[in-house]
């Protein structure tokens, strides 16, 4: 077994364990921390796959932005609820598991079967996925999606404004729902 494979298995195992942690934790805070671990290990894997820029972006965007935002919301609304209402949801559990296993089997089967050999000079072509290489590609061949992402961010901006704004005329804090029902 080569060292690189050993490394992959190690990091992959941590990543997988973290993924399981996200799903099984009772406390959302724990889930969020497991999620952070998962994101960080994936960033390590990106480096082994010649994607340096994305590894950095992964840490900055996901770990630094998204997880922090989620943690803020947890602090804001508190989220400790025990939500495994097993008796009520037994069927959906079984169905979920079954679907999951089928999905997994299908994807791994096709992933493992007859993959073509990677290109010989991959590393040269990818240039290690440095910011320079990705940037040049992004601002020449892929300028259209880049522009479109700007529209997407505009939507998110307006949306967060509309939904997050404190209601006009509403009293401090949480407005009463009963009035509308």
């Amino acid at each position, binding site marked *: 077994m080569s060292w690189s494979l050993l490394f992959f298995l190690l990091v992959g195992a941590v990543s997988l364990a973290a993924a399981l942690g996200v799903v099984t934790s009772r406390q959302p805070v724990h889930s969020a921390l497991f999620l952070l671990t998962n994101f960080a290990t994936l960033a390590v894997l990106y480096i082994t796959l010649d994607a340096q820029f994305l590894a950095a972006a992964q840490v900055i965007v996901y770990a630094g932005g998204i997880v922090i935002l989620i943690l803020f919301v947890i602090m804001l609304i508190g989220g400790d609820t025990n939500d495994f209402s097993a008796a009520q949801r037994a069927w959906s559990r079984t169905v979920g598991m079954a679907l999951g296993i089928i999905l997994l089997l299908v994807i791994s089967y096709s992933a493992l079967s007859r993959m073509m050999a990677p290109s010989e000079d991959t590393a040269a072509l990818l240039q290690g996925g440095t910011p320079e290489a990705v940037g040049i590609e992004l601002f020449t061949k892929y300028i259209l999606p880049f522009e479109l992402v700007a529209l997407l961010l*505009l939507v998110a901006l*307006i949306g967060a404004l509309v939904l997050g704004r404190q209601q006009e005329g509403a009293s401090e804090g949480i407005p009463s729902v009963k009035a509308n029902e």
Partner: protein
Amino acid sequence: MDTALLFDNAVVLLPELVLAVGVMVLMMVDIGRRGQNGSQLLAGLSVAILLLGIGASVMIWGRAPVEYLDGAISDGFALSVRLVILIAGVLGVLLSRNWFPAIERQGGAFYSLHLLAVIGMMLMGTATNLIVLFIALEIFSLALYILSGFYRENARSIEAAMKYFLLGAFASTFFVYGCALLYGAGGSSKFTQIHETLATGGGNPSLVLPGIALLLVGFGFKVSLVPFHMWTPDVYQGAPTPVTAFMSVGTKAAAFAGFFRLMMTALPSFHDQWAMPLAILAVLTMTVGNLTALRQSSVKRMLAYSGIAHAGNILIALVAGTAAASSAAAFYLFAYAFMNIGAFTVTIALERQYGNENDVEQSRLAGAAERFPVLAAAMAIFMLSLSGIPPLAGFFGKFLVFKAAVEAGWAWLVVIGVLNSAVSAYYYLRIVVAMYFQQPEQAGDEKEQPFVPASRSSVFVVVVSVLAVVVIGLQPGLWADLLRGLGQ
């Protein structure tokens, strides 16, 4: 890269550009009139922008299809779908002029999101590469999540937004996973490139089938195919009615257009593998949609299930997978835009009559023909058209789709489709019967409520829709020639 490349063929995206600039103007105007209530001006501006967009599409209509930056194309199909979406957008804006307090207060946000959703939907129809397709999908999905929750003070609306968001985001992950596997199969995100690589025996063909399966799950959620439809009635019922009306048409048109192009330009060589699962989905969708619609008491929920059934009908065109079928689907969507939005407009007008904010029960329609003869007559026309009774627009939509499917050798599927149409006639006609032939149960207090006049823009939408449904029905050939399919 030469900067000239950026402007070469940029005319392909002219309608989108017009709308994008329009959104910015709209937001500026909104800032300029801070503090004023009412959003008449903004609505007028949005309509003007959308009409400019239609003008721009008409301008580039006859040109030979060109591709822009390997990501967008302007062929007949893209333009046809664009037209449908722009029309749905105009009608949706007009519908919102019904004294909804939330929209009056935050008109700037509402109309800019509406226009952005239209841009995203139009891009779905033009996208020729997986990255653009995915971003377009996300643009309109995100805008619609927010619009569904636009009545923030209404718990149902916010809840609808939450459900729509969680299921929609879940579906998007499947969609993008499917895109990733297709990229792995063909080594490119360009549809045509994927096809070329796979057709010449290269790539990883073993990744194609799981890729298609995952894409189907994501796509099924977006156009609410059974068994991925459970969010539809809830969201349709909870979301503001003008949004529901726009969404029910726009999402279908956009998602079908994007998926049509993807399947027919990237994976035509796998047609044998994907046609059968799609056919089964179509049968399920039509049957479950129609049978469940039979049991609904709320008009909006009934329309939601009817929308599911219509998605099943359009799916038949995709199963057939020919150029004729894609133009039939465009025609179907064109007709559907008018009749469905028309039906929702009447629903809004009736909501106002019965004093309920955001829904109306079917049982209350009894005797409506006496109280509101014009509304009832319009509703009757839309219901007849939706059920596919000739010579209205809905009939020719179904007819063209079924014809294309028979020609492609899917006669059994068409038989099931026709049977389903017969079932659907029952619940559409039930509304007509209730309005015209039933007496209201508690006649006393209902009569006392004064008649609430519909807004001028609603009247306009109803008149235009009725005219369109009748004219398209009388002159189907004209419109069928105008709306083109893939590769035509």
